[in-house]
């Protein structure tokens, strides 16, 4: 009798569907940064700043990768450090900085302070990679506020410090089983941890670093709207990985989060287009307005993608887009917004949109939207996890927790970012490139330009370079 040889090449706790989707979702989110944000921002910037913009995006991403695997992941998602009394804030706000790159670190089963009930069915590498791309996109978002004057060296120092002292702490508090998570505040995919934080940091940074050159602001025409389209399309569709990967199981919550994402985004895009046609002086639909609406929809559904139903997603998209449209066109003319040169308006499209989406969870979360069930029971039996907002439960509790968490994010991120900016300012002897450099742009900083004309250049052969 022949014995069948069964070869199972992975551990029993590993679910190939979960692992495959999580890795795919993570890669989609990574694409949102590179090339998504790189070409979206590059296309929005005037020609003289395209190279600087794209290099800051790529280098920022790369720095986060390194910080994350060497100490950041465990600070955000590892066992929480007991720095105070049990149960106090000081024992529930950050994990231990520790690398995850040993063979054990990379290949053992993923665990996290957040997930005590149900195990995860893929290795730490998968989870760390997934969380990494979320961490990595965040600096690229607030980069949008600081473009065309932030000193490149200062950027290289700022990113690792910000990830370490701001992102990892916010993530541990809201996702890593930390203080606000324990109180019941929720953030499905990062409307608070990523977008609200990015909006605040961008605004604070723009205020501290100072405005663009007046001449740059007066000639701030986009260099390539087709590249904006490429970046935006990747952002929208890639976001299905952003929200679809955040339930951490390739199950029904992932599917509904994905659908909700597209509903909110489509609604938000059309709302902004409609507002441009109805309420601007020119009454014309604009492509860049549509993209703004798209981004607002994506950001505002992020805190609640798997907890609101489709109607909730629709409402969130329309309302957030309308409010941010008003903020973009009117709040921007009022102090302090009028005094701060947030180059790409990140405080509106990410900051305000993220805040609105996070608060909307407190109103619109439908307890019938199950995120996951408890092991051993049917997935929607008692003990399954969902969130209830005011319109379903009649209770303001969730809204209150969302408000508290938002307050923390805004205040802590604002203050900590400011401190880091000033430290970097001291170490780098200034946060701005010199005015003579700003006048020229890419060529002065990088010796490269976005669209060089080969006809007018000649290769120089010298002893030092072949």
């Amino acid at each position, binding site marked *: 009798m022949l014995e069948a040889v069964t070869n199972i090449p992975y551990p029993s706790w590993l679910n190939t569907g979960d692992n495959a989707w999580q890795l795919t979702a993570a890669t989609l989110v990574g694409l949102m940064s590179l090339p998504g944000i790189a070409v979206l921002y590059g296309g929005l910037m005037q020609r003289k700043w395209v190279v600087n913009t794209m290099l800051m995006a790529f280098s920022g991403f790369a720095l986060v990768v390194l910080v994350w695997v060497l100490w950041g992941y465990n600070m955000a998602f590892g066992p929480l450090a007991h720095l105070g009394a049990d149960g106090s804030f000081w024992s529930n706000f950050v994990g231990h900085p520790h690398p995850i790159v040993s063979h054990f670190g990379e290949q053992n089963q993923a665990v996290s302070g957040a997930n005590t009930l149900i195990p995860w069915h893929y290795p730490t590498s998968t989870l760390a990679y997934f969380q990494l791309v979320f961490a990595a996109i965040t600096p690229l978002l607030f980069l949008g506020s600081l473009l065309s004057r932030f000193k490149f060296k200062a950027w290289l120092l700022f990113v690792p410090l910000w990830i370490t002292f701001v992102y990892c702490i916010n993530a541990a508090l809201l996702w890593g089983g930390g203080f606000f998570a324990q109180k019941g505040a929720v953030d499905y995919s990062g409307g608070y941890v990523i977008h609200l934080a990015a909006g605040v940091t961008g605004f604070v940074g723009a205020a501290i670093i100072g405005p663009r050159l007046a001449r740059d602001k007066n*000639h701030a025409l986009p260099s390539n709207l087709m590249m904006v389209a490429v970046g935006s399309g990747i952002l929208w569709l890639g976001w299905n990985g952003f929200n679809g990967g955040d339930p951490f199981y390739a199950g029904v919550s992932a599917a509904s989060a994905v659908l909700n994402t597209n509903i909110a985004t489509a609604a938000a895009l059309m709302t902004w287009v409609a507002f441009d046609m109805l309420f601007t002086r020119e009454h014309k639909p604009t492509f860049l307005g549509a993209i703004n609406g798209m981004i607002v929809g994506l950001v505002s559904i992020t805190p609640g993608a798997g907890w609101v139903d489709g109607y909730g997603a629709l409402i969130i998209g329309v309302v957030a887009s309308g409010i941010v449209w008003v903020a973009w066109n009117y709040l921007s003319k009022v102090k302090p917004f009028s005094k701060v040169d947030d180059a790409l308006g990140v405080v509106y499209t990410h900051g305000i949109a993220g805040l609105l989406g996070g608060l909307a969870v407190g109103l619109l979360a439908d307890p019938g939207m199950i995120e996951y069930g408890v092991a051993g029971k049917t997935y929607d039996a008692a003990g399954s996890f969902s969130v209830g907002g005011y319109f379903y439960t009649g209770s303001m509790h969730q809204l209150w927790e969302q408000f508290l968490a938002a307050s923390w994010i805004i205040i802590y991120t604002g203050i900590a970012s400011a401190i880091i900016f000033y430290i970097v300012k001291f170490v780098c002897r200034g946060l701005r490139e010199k005015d003579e450099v700003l006048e020229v742009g890419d060529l002065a900083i990088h010796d490269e330009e976005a669209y060089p004309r080969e006809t007018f250049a000649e290769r120089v052969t010298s002893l030092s370079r072949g």
Partner: protein
Amino acid sequence: MKLVVAVIKPFKLDDVKEKLKGIGVNGMTLTEVQGFGRQRGHTEVYRGAEYEIDFVPKLRIEVLVDDTEANAVVDAIVESAGTGKIGDGKVWVLPVETAVRVRTGERGPEAV
């Protein structure tokens, strides 16, 4: 020898080329330029920020001609480039001191 310079609306190029071919002119140099005279510019809006653009895209045509042909060329351009609206452009004539055909080295009127 004369250099006839014309600034015209870009979409009239085909008409001007045909007309000039018709009167025996077979060479010209073209540059894309921006200009304005009495024609008003326009506004562009990017992300809610308005930008005024005074300049209008135009084409600059240069034709080297013999003294005797200059007027005919000017008339031909004026006829074919005009639309009757503001912004049709201008034509002017400059005297040319020397002209040389690079391939053969011919100088003077033979080079035109």
